[in-house]
């Protein structure tokens, strides 16, 4: 077996040193009834690289990759170009095969990268502090709700109907244990009025912008209304590239900003691994979940970085921890950070502008098709169209024509005739033309 360095002679010599006859003797504490022989496992024997690659490639070949076709799916995961440099750098052994940086003397690479990541996330969101990442956007949203309940010592969270439905379900699953969740009805294409729902028991209002239908929402009135009642505003961003073009939530009064960071540095990966961003106002840092890298000095007075404020975490506080989270999404955060370093201010704002202009172009062309109307007035790179019939059927028919046209809103439990469509810098003029032509044909 290519991954196992011990030879039969090695094993014999080691057993002799230990003073036992065979390896079974080392398993003597396992009850006899629980010892299963090899034959008890209906599993094949070891395989070489060639065979393994062949088998897994067959699985891969049965999927339609985003790069294979004109592609317009979004709704929480976006197809962007990731520079080759990113993947090369994250595969360096020292990043890929190191553990959580608990020994800072020999983990400065990871720690400094996380410190830089935190700085970038704070800048993008317009917030004061960010953590070193959480699992993904949806779990980060749940953590934000729990944090708001801790900070305000209030039980109720109000979720906008424009929040991605699977995010809503994730929040409800964990936050229902600690409080009450009220969700507003979805109103595709317009911002529902959440103000009447806010009362003196409200811990937070959670709103996504751009929302699941692509709508950019004005957050300031919500922030003011929440603050007037002593509640926090939690803003969710599922497309971080939007922050290159639109006013960041931090400048609109958000108290906690969470985001899905997949768009930068990370592939679609059929939904994971992704990377959750989590940024807050400075006064809340000790209530924030997840790991934090902080700057300090070493015994010789040189600048260095450590994991800090770790008493909030499970390995010290145990049943009093702010969250049960153990890992973050380190390597995905690194990919995010490297991609953003390559982009810089100039590249990132240009990327955002390209995304928006592609979407505007696509929206105009789709809107011109008889029976089709764009229902999202303000959007970044994603919008929703109303079709004369079932969007799920249309998507299947377009898939047969080699176009992945978007996510039917019905897949997330919304109306049957709505299609959520995203365009990014990866879409060419030909892609857009192919989509428009195919849609005209099936309608």
């Amino acid at each position: 077996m290519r991954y196992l360095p011990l030879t039969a002679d090695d094993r014999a010599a080691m057993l002799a040193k230990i003073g036992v006859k065979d390896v079974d003797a080392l398993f003597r504490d396992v009850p006899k009834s629980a010892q299963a022989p090899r034959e008890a496992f209906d599993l094949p024997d070891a395989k070489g690289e060639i065979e393994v690659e062949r088998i897994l490639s067959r699985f891969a070949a049965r999927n339609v990759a985003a790069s294979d076709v004109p592609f317009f799916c979004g709704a929480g995961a976006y197809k962007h170009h990731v520079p080759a440099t990113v993947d090369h750098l994250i595969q360096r052994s020292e990043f890929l095969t190191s553990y959580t940086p608990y020994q800072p003397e020999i983990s400065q690479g990871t720690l400094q990268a996380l410190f830089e990541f935190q700085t970038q996330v704070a800048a993008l969101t317009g917030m004061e502090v960010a953590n070193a990442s959480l699992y993904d956007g949806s779990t980060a949203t749940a953590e934000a709700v729990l944090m708001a309940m801790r900070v305000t010592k209030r039980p109720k969270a109000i979720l906008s109907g424009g929040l991605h439905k699977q995010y809503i379900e994730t929040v409800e699953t964990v936050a229902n244990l600690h409080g009450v969740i009220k969700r507003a009805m979805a109103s595709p294409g317009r911002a529902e009025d959440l103000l009447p729902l806010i009362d003196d028991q409200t811990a937070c209002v959670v709103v996504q912008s751009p929302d699941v239908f692509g709508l950019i929402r004005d957050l300031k009135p919500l922030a003011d209304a929440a603050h007037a009642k002593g509640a926090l505003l939690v803003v969710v961003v599922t497309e971080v590239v939007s922050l290159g073009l639109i006013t960041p939530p931090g400048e609109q009064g958000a108290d906690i900003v969470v985001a899905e960071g997949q768009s930068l540095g990370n592939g679609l990966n059929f939904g994971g691994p992704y990377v959750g961003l989590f940024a807050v106002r400075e006064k809340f840092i000790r209530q924030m979940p997840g790991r934090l890298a902080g700057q300090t000095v070493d015994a010789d007075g040189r600048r260095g970085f450590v994991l800090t404020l770790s008493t909030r975490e499970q390995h010290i506080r145990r049943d009093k921890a702010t969250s049960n989270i153990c890992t973050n999404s380190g390597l995905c955060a690194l990919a995010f950070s490297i991609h953003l370093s390559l982009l810089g201010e100039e590249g990132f704002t240009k990327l955002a502008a390209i995304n928006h202009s592609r979407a505007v172009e696509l929206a105009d062309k789709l809107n011109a098709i008889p029976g089709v109307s764009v229902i999202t007035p303000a959007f970044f790179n994603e919008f929703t169209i109303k079709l004369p019939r079932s969007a799920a059927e249309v998507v299947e028919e377009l898939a047969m024509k080699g176009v992945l046209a978007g996510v039917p809103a019905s897949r997330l439990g919304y109306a049957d005739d709505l299609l959520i469509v995203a365009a990014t810098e990866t879409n060419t003029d030909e892609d857009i033309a192919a989509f428009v032509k195919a849609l005209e044909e099936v309608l």
Partner: protein
Amino acid sequence: MTTYYTDQHEWIRVEGDEGTVGITGHATEQLGDVVFVETPSAGKVLKKGDEAAVVESVKAASEVYAPVGGTVTAANEDLSGDPAKVNAAPEGDGWFFKIKIADKAELSQLMTEDKYKEFVAGL
């Protein structure tokens, strides 16, 4: 002015109806460098044994319990900016909060300084 101690390593110095509460030198030695203190706000009503404050060091976080019941009258605001005071003078500038004692009879369940020293020696 008498100081009483708990087996959870809090002290309370009583003047009239009011007590000043903090953690003992022994507690700070066990915790190491204190990095953060969360104190209760004035007006908070506590029962004896309630969680009143939180003290964090680099390696540990601990609750500080109310040695007696009563109403919090003041918290040591200096600690948020300078938690090192707890290590430097645990029974002086490093006090946590002041409490108006509801029932002074509860003090009789606490230890005297000598008793506490004996208690710590036996740990």
